[in-house]
């Protein structure tokens, strides 16, 4: 079983180091082979909204940089854990950039989910269990709730956790998540 950690290279605070250590230890103890990807300011171009990943090179971003490797790792992992600073209640720019350029893993078509909402289907039958951990010192309640809502209101099969230094909470919550590929709606 394989795992990938996708983290912000430019926000390696003490809190991040502590979280990173916990997550690596957790994945090792769970017996997963872990690959780590650190994304910095100059590592990825911004998505340019060209839809080339859907209609020119379906499944691949047309921009030639490290994102091809990130997407290949993503789709071949059983578990992917994003470690993102919480910035204005959202992912940091580095992590958001990686998420914007993850859309080659979806199909362009619309589908209606059971709750009536609209989404794009997954390109692959299964995709990794995705876990997003937002971290930050002194986060406001509003920013924490917004960080959770951005994903939980719109995505299925994706877990969101917040880390502000409580090691036991994170370890316990991670321990309850089934670490395997999932199918169904994104």
């Amino acid at each position, binding site marked *: 079983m394989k795992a990938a950690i996708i983290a912000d290279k430019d926000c390696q605070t003490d809190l991040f180091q502590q979280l990173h250590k916990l997550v690596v230890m957790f994945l090792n103890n769970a017996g997963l082979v872990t690959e780590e990807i650190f994304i910095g300011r100059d590592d990825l171009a911004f*998505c340019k*909204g060209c839809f080339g990943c859907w209609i020119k090179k379906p499944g691949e971003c047309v921009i030639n940089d490290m994102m091809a490797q990130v997407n290949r790792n993503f789709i071949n992992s059983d578990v992917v854990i994003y470690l993102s600073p919480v*910035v204005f209640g959202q*992912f940091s720019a*580095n992590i958001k950039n990686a998420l*914007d350029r993850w859309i080659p893993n979806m199909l362009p*078509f619309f589908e209606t989910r059971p709750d009536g909402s609209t989404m794009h289907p997954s390109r*692959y039958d299964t995709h990794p269990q995705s876990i997003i951990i937002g971290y930050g010192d002194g986060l406001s309640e509003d920013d924490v709730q917004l960080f959770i809502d*951005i994903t939980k209101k719109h995505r299925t099969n994706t877990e969101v956790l917040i880390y502000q230094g409580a090691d036991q909470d994170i370890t316990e919550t991670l321990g309850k998540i089934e670490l395997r590929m999932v199918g169904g709606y994104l």
Partner: protein
Amino acid sequence: MRNIVLINASPKINEPSASAFLVNLVGSYIEEANTNKNFINVRQSTTRHKTQDDFAAISQADAVIIVFPLYVFCLPGLLMRYLEDYHKFYMEHGMASSHPKVYAIVNCGFPEPGINLEAVRVIKSFSHHVKAHFRFGILIGGGGMLLGVKDAPFMKKTFGKLNDAFATIAQDIENDDLKSIEDISIAMNFPRRLYLIMGNRGWPALARKNGLKKRDLYKRPYR
């Protein structure tokens, strides 16, 4: 003299964008007299290394209108970088004008305008972090069809709502008070089911222009 900054945060390069269209439309509602309107294109500001000048303009604004497309349920990375960098600028220089008013105009390809709500909340949080007054957002669903059918008769009702919403922003900028105003949601005046069917039919047609067949759209290059 009132300083108004209008920000187009579409990441598209040399392609028509709904955000560019919307930023010009809302700009046309801003009073010309005694007003200095400054249009900023985030992509150009970044690539042409104009960010420090543009940040100075934002810091002196009485009102800032941020127009952008929804990317994966929140702000595009490009805009997020810009706001992070502006926040650093703000921490170093402060805001020249006191507490500008901030507005968000977000459009998404999904037909439901409510999907944009969290993106509006991010702009609200950003405003809080730079001690600006977030006023309200305009949430637009079905933005994917906005440019293609803007002159069609059935869009008259939608444009009526857009025009009213933009006039509300213009009026609010003029007002001295900070009376609470609710976000405004605008869906295309078009049946959702038909919108999805048309959207789904459009992709194979676009792929064919690139020499691909419909089945190529389903390729799985990484497995």
